């Protein structure tokens, strides 16, 4: 791979050992893909996880004096003070790991957003930008809906790009690799956000990987519907990009989506397929102990939906009700009175966290209900029911 003089200097350690490590990783990835050169990125999203391997790398960079060169946002960890005050039984060493992860990302100059939808809130790419975005919904969303360009990154490669400000040029950075591979004909009416959740789960499962081109969608999908499709197609599969002709930016037509080529494969999605996917997600039909919403993080619109569906009713006694969202969203939800309404009903709105964090240890042997297959997939709780938001709220209110 050709490196510029400045890149060579970074690799030799002239910008400090932290930035050098970041560059070493980017060069290794470039070598793996036969990249010819590095190209600048304008922003990055590190899907920080709070696991030991993640902690090791960010501390390596922070201790070596690295600082992010471009805006770099971060994924949820958990709100340490809040959860250790609220729940008993979270291991102390988990708090220590979470504290060190947060400290290291702060020292490295990342945005302390601790949210999984940075592209809607504090780290927003534009059409044509080259970025390094890890996180299941972020990669396909910025590629497809926005038309920015990112490969499927790990948290560490995205952070390395945020620090050095470059990424090896390969894969989805090239036009020819962004063309559709499979024609997905949707022969059912997609009614709401949950239908897009099921569609994403189903398409990911059937395709595994590749670039689906979705036809048969007549109504413009909403932001939340796109987010759900993106997140869930990366639970059951690895879909880094997709096209919806007429609605996503690089595909005004089906022909353009395939760049004039013939699809490698064609699949049809029927109503029965979505129903079957939904059935597969249920591990129990039994009594629910808690409802967990906001995986991926709920938008302000979705927080308002909860308030509307609650209609002033209380959550049933003995039932826990959680809503995960971003700090910026919660601030606006507080202003609008949504947080107050959910808390008055007996629910909780929490920021900076995610179901895949150790703070939920209390629910390990419980039955959870959620509108997100991604949330149930992590298996932080024993059994799961997955259904649309309105059903989750009704179950929470009625206690069954």
């Amino acid at each position, binding site marked *: 791979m050709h490196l510029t003089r400045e890149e060579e200097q970074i690799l030799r350690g002239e910008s400090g050992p932290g930035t050098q490590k970041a560059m070493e990783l980017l060069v290794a*990835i470039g*070598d*793996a893909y036969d990249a010819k050169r590095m190209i600048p990125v304008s922003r990055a999203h590190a899907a920080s996880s709070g696991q030991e*391997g993640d902690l090791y790398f960010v501390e390596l960079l922070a201790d070596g004096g690295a600082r992010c060169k471009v805006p770099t946002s971060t994924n949820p960890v958990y709100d340490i003070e809040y959860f250790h005050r609220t729940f008993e039984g979270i291991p102390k060493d988990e708090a220590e790991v979470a504290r060190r992860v947060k400290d290291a990302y702060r020292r490295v100059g990342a945005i302390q957003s601790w949210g999984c939808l940075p592209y809607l809130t504090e780290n927003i790419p534009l059409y044509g930008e080259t970025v390094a975005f890890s996180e299941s919904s972020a990669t396909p969303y910025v590629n497809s809906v926005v038309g920015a360009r990112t*490969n499927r990154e790990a948290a560490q490669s995205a952070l390395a790009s945020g620090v050095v400000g470059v990424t090896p040029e390969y894969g989805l950075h090239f036009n020819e690799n962004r063309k559709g591979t499979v024609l997905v004909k949707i022969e059912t009416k997609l009614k709401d956000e949950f239908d897009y959740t099921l569609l994403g789960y189903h398409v990911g499962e059937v395709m595994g990987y590749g670039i689906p081109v979705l036809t048969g969608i007549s109504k413009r999908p909403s932001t939340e519907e796109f987010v759900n499709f993106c997140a869930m197609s990366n639970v059951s599969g690895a879909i880094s990009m997709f096209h919806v002709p007429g609605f996503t930016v690089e595909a005004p037509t089906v022909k353009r989506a395939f760049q004039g080529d013939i699809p490698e494969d064609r699949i049809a999605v029927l109503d029965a397929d979505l129903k079957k996917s939904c059935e597969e997600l249920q591990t129990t039909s039994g009594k629910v102990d808690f409802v967990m919403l906001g995986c991926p993080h709920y938008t302000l619109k979705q927080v308002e939906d909860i308030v509307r569906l609650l209609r002033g009713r209380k959550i049933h006694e003995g039932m826990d009700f959680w809503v995960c969202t971003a700090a910026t969203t919660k601030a606006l939800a507080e202003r609008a009175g949504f947080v107050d309404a959910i808390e008055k009903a007996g629910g909780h709105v929490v920021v900076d966290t995610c179901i895949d964090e150790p703070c939920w240890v209390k629910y390990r042997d419980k039955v959870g209900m959620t509108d997100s297959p991604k949330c149930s997939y992590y298996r932080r709780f024993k059994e799961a029911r997955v259904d649309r938001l309105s059903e989750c709220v009704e179950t929470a209110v009625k206690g069954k």
Partner: protein
Amino acid sequence: MRSSDVVLKCHRIIGGYGEGEALVSHEPICFYLTDPKTGVVRERDHELAGKNVAGKVLVFPSGKASSVVQIDGLFKLMMNKLAPQAMIVKDVETVLVVSAFIAKVPLVDRLEKDPFDAITTGSFVKVNAEKGEVTIDCNHG
């Protein structure tokens, strides 16, 4: 070099040198599904179920599973000094590169012969990633 040694060219991804007994898997590997305290593969129905990856030269087609668990899995093995000595793969992707980088395990691909033909479990294999060379002692083991 002994007469029974076969030297094959390969492509370096993560540098370094490692040698040991080969352990061949025709199925993709997720390091999260190995026991971090022993190195034994505990993924049920996996070709390597019950086998130990610690100190081996691991030959496998590719990684699998989400980035977080794969990276953390290999990292935990490394911290317990149970990581493989080196890895020879057919298809590489970003997550496996990051995993090997963090765990400091030499990683190579594009062996000049199909690694599944050239290497059998139990052969003694030296991986010199720096030089882009894999040496197989076919009489060993």
